[in-house]
């Protein structure tokens, strides 16, 4: 296994000082931009004449279930937070996995939709499977997503079709195809199908009591398993090494004997499987019937932001998925405290913009360190002279 070896341009160099460590740490910078995002959000709330305490009370309630205004504790809100985070983490990994191979997967939304649609069909039509039909549904969704993503990777490898254009177009195809196919189901009307059989719905087991009947399902374990799998594959296998090498420099990887084209297809396939699973977890975890989707759920698109903030690493994507999930499930709680609903999106947006500025921030910090070093050197020389 060559997976443990580190590629030269990846990861931080040995830190010498705290500042160096900070500049070189994507994690620390991510935290900084998140804090900046919240600071700006707070200022905006004050600027529109509302009390920013509402924002933080809503976030507190999302994270702990404790409503500080009424003193009531209800674990359901924690469950709802994790429920919102699940598809975001998976779609973030969809974006992130492709990004690590140097591909820009804007198609997580489409892959999410085919996953959702496949899960709904299998849920309604699959024969019994030991009372755990939901497992089959999840597998079908992952397969459908993998096909939808892998198709793009193959087009890229075989015909050099830009994966950006292909994924965007496939998003539309997935959307309209899903609507068309789902409406063919007997007794489906323009927005829903008949109810799923009970065994197709993802079970809640002990989570149901633990989170006071939130919508949080066993899907959370699937998500956690995926995070571990993501890390294992990318960091600890030969395949992952090849994918990362392709992502860093595909020409060099090609010369080194890595099948770059095969990497494209594999990477997009795995990315699609993550997004497909997200679709199934929403479809069979949060709904008891199939939906004729009327618009994008946007988990796929938000996944782009999740991966960006999480820096496409397993742990980072998990954390940033939890962050975006928190912002989205805190939204109704904010509105309840008269904080405009747009604030949560403004904060998410700011975080994304600021993360994109990560490179810029790093330049400024490095430049200032250099100036300071030059000054102290000059001072020392002056003192010595």
């Amino acid at each position, binding site marked *: 296994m060559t997976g443990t070896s580190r590629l030269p341009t990846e990861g931080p160099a040995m830190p010498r000082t705290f500042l160096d460590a900070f500049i070189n740490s994507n994690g620390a910078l991510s935290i900084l931009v998140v804090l900046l995002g919240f600071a700006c959000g707070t200022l905006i709330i004050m600027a529109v004449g509302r009390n920013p305490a509402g924002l933080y009370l809503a976030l507190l309630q999302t994270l702990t279930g404790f409503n500080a205004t*009424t003193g009531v504790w209800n674990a359901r*809100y924690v469950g*709802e937070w994790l429920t919102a985070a699940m598809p975001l983490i998976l779609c973030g990994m969809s974006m992130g996995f492709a990004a690590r191979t140097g591909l820009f997967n804007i198609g997580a939304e489409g892959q999410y939709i085919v996953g959702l649609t496949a899960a709904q069909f299998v849920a309604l039509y699959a024969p019994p499977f030991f009372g755990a039909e939901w497992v089959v549904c999840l597998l079908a969704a992952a397969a459908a997503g993998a096909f939808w993503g892998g198709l793009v990777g193959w087009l890229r490898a075989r015909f050099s079709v830009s994966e950006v254009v292909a994924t965007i177009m496939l998003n539309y195809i997935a959307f309209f195809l899903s609507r068309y196919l789902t409406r063919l189901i007997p007794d489906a009307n*323009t927005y829903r199908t008949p109810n799923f059989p009970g065994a197709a719905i993802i079970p809640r087991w002990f989570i149901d009591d633990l989170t006071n009947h939130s*919508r949080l399902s066993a899907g959370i374990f699937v998500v956690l398993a995926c995070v571990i799998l993501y890390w294992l594959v990318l960091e600890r296998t030969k395949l992952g090494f090849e994918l990362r090498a392709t992502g860093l420099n595909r020409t060099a990887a090609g010369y080194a004997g890595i099948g770059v084209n095969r990497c494209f297809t594999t990477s997009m396939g795995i990315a699609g499987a993550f997004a497909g699973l997200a679709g199934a977890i929403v479809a069979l975890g*949060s709904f008891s019937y199939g939906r004729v989707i009327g618009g994008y759920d946007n988990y796929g698109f938000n996944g782009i932001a999740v991966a960006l903030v999480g820096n496409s690493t397993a742990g980072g994507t998990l954390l940033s998925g939890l962050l975006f999930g928190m912002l989205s499930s805190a939204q*109704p709680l904010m509105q309840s405290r*008269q904080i405009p609903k747009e604030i949560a999106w403004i904060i998410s947006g700011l975080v994304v913009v600021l993360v994109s500025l990560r490179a810029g921030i790093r330049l400024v910090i490095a430049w200032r360190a250099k100036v300071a070093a030059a000054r102290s050197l000059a001072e020392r020389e002056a003192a010595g002279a």
Partner: protein
Amino acid sequence: MKKSFLAAIALTLVALTQAFAADPTVRLLTDATGIDDKSFNAAAWRGILDFYGDTWAKQSKRGKAYDVVTAQTQDMYVPNLKQASDEKYDLIIVTGFTWADALSEVAKLYPEQKYMIVDVDWVGDPNVMQVTFSEHEGSFLVGVATALKAKAEGIKDPKFGFIGGIPGPVITKFEVGYVMGILSVLPKAKIVDYYANDWGKPELAKAQAKNWYDSGVYAIFSAAGGTGNGTIAQAKEYRTQGKKVWAIGVDSDQYADGIYSGTKSAVLTSMLKRVETASKVSIQNVKAGTFKSEVLVLDTKADGVGFATSNPELDKSIVTQVEQVRKNIIAGKVKVFATYAEAKAAGKVPGDLQASDK
């Protein structure tokens, strides 16, 4: 320290609740389009504002007596309903049939909580009040008004368009009524229809409207929530260029949205669906203690639906004629069908419309 802080907050809350003890507290839950859709949700919100003596510009009791929470995605319907129920509002109002499944799930979990849903009559729970409208009658009236205007302007072989949101029984009532109204005046008029499959995509309606206006369509009626604003935008553009085209507003009087110069508006008339009446009546019932599980039908007779007369270009003579039709509907002399199947069976509408009864 912490305890005394919490106690202080609790006391303030008690004081606030007492200050408004006379009036019930209300939470409005909407879909992603929110109360700024200038149409359906806006009307529900206006009814609430009206009950509390507030206006759109002055929402002084918002956050104390009433407020609104918008759901960004459909999977937030259930949690938002549960949250509002936890927060113990006297009444929770939801708008639109897409909420029906979520409501019937949550209403059973909170039997003491009162709910009201607009546009739905199949949620039977004992703590849910349901309000529906006779949209087909109101749409019939704007259909008549539009056709009369085409006649008055001497348009040869006028064509009429209909743009719907997500197809379903409710939107079908709009389409069937409108088409019947037009054909009652101009039996040979050609009808075109299109469904955007979305309540919040004005760009789709705008593109379709441009296509149709270019191909000689005289007026377009949009029953598509925020999507319909695209029709009005396109009609405005073309009227500014001097083309004789109209948009027909929906739910609220959209005359002001269509103004392009002075008092000239591209919105000839609007089908008024007084959702504000629904929210107002339900709050009044809660206050008076007469709230019960019922299906309230707001029809022409109950003034639940009607047509807007604010555009000065809608001639007085036309208004008089439409008023007469209105009286005939109330008197039962004109029968407007609510489903496509019935209207088609009676031969009152063409057989190639995209309207769906399920």
